[in-house]
């Protein structure tokens, strides 16, 4: 296994990336003086600490090696994310029911045993539950199907 593909090395790289990103996006924030700190003082301080820690973590991982990273399965994370985005896009334009159906359908594709009848049953049960809890129970202002209910 390549020593650059260890969990620790990549984690160090991630921290360095966050540190650099924070420095770049915070470049216009005035640091000020220790007495009167500007908005940038603490962010800059934290960014530098992250850079140092990230560098240390990566360095230790390259010298001593580390636990290799597991090859991620992209299907579940991709489908869950797509499902959430689809929900966000559909919710305000078409109402809760289409958004809910899309989310449950897409997320169910992520599991290995996919049965369409089960998914439909799940959608029906969850719709009833959500209407009871959110619309009736907590009295939220939600359209179930936009323009209809």
């Amino acid at each position: 296994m390549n020593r650059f593909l260890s969990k620790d090395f990549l984690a160090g790289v991630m921290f360095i990336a966050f540190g650099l990103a924070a420095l770049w996006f915070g470049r216009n924030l005035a640091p000020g003086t220790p007495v009167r700190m500007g908005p940038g003082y603490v962010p800059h301080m934290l960014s530098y600490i992250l850079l140092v820690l990230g560098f240390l973590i990566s360095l230790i991982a390259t010298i001593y090696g580390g636990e290799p990273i597991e090859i991620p399965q992209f299907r579940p994370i991709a489908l869950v994310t797509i499902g959430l985005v689809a929900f966000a896009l559909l919710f305000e334009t078409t109402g809760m029911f289409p958004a809910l159906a899309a989310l449950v359908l897409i997320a169910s594709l992520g599991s290995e045993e996919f049965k369409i009848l089960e998914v439909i049953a799940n959608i029906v049960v969850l719709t009833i539950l959500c209407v009871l809890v959110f619309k009736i129970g907590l009295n939220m202002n939600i359209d179930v199907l936009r323009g209809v209910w």
Partner: protein
Amino acid sequence: MLSNLALGMGVALSLQNLFYAFVGCMVGTLIGVLPGIGPVATIAMLLPITFHLPPVAALIMLAGIYYGAQYGGSTTSILVNLPGEASSVVTCIDGYQMARKGRAGAALSIAALGSFFAGTVGTLIIVLFAEPLTQMAQKFGPADYCSLMALGLVAAVVLANGSVLKAIAMVFLGLLFGLVGTDVNTGAQRFTFEIPELSDGIDFAPIAMGLFGIAEIVVNLERKMSRSGAIKVTSLWPNREEARRAWPAVIRGTALGAVLGVLPGGGPTLGAFSSYTLEKKVSRRPAEFGRGAVEGVAAPESANNAAAQTSFIPMLTLGIPSNAVMALMVGAMIIQGIQPGPEVMTKKPDLFWGMIASMWIGNLMLVIINLPMIGMWVKLLTVPYRFLAPAILLFCAIGAYSLQNSIFHVEQVAIFGVLGYIFVRLGCEGAPFLLGLVLGPQMEEYFRRAMLLSRGDPAVFVQRPISLGLLITTAILLILMALPSLRKAREEAFQEEEG
């Protein structure tokens, strides 16, 4: 003190609060029984809903979920050898063996009654320590607070699982995310990318939902969940021999759990593991452990519940969360417009004492919910995860939307879900990140105020005796971590946990 308790009982016994305590205990037991979803993810999911409830009811319900999960987790550990919660992993070892010997009912009732005893003691400890600790905290200046938070964050890291260096980096990353929004002192926009929703700061609930809820679902979807058949429960009563062996273990477990719960980074899981190890050491029959020793069920189950109660102490009195669940409770208070800290007790006594009293009532409810209704909970285990995962996702999505009726928060959940998944894959713990995120804004505020008062001299942090003492403790913890022998012992302790 008695008048405080009376006030608390009055609040907790109102019909509305009793109802929410019951809801919290039911939900807690439910998620405790179901593997694949823990109290952190559940509380994160329900945070937006609590926004629609009165503050006392909201906190009572969330607290109920937390300690309810400790009860529920033991049920599946004993009956199906499947821990519903991390804190019930050790209960599997001897609990399931007892069940195989036909003593399932005895194991269950010892676990429940031990938990109830521990919960009662834990609640009493909170009552005893709350006032003195709060009075002490009111003497703290900005520098002292800053050092106290540093100590809390470092201690949380030391006791957390996994690499210390990575956990420290996660704390700083959390602190950095906490800075997003408008700078309180100058009004400057920091890391807002001209998104209006971000100018009030990054919302806590969607981050917690993404990091814990979504990432947990994805990881569970990746691996297959196997379920084995449950063991039938006959009599619920332990026999005389079992009772005689259980009660000293319950007392030892309660004591150890109560102490470990108060420590930052401690909590139910640490309490359960430590007390199991302790029982094995003090037992006259160590060979029985792993073959259905009563002590192996009684001690860890009492310890995890005692720790669940006492971990409220630093949060309620100092405003410093000691673990991820407490960080979420702080988030829930902030959503309700309450700044956690020593003022909560003096300014909102009804909330403070009501919550404590409700914990004892909740524990009583849990014994009733758990023992007679055991069959129903076990049936729930047969619901496959492919039904649960979309349902959990859906609750996250609607909950996030309902925060401010904006789909921006749903998108935020999706983004932090991906980030949380990356954290899991890289072996970075979410809990230190969350603690940093919650404490970040306050810590910056105290830091800047302390430096302003001292005219820019950082020596203020070592000149004030309270601050100096806290910083020395922090340094000692960090040095201890660097010692090779201690690091090895810590790794071994967590190895056992994973095994």
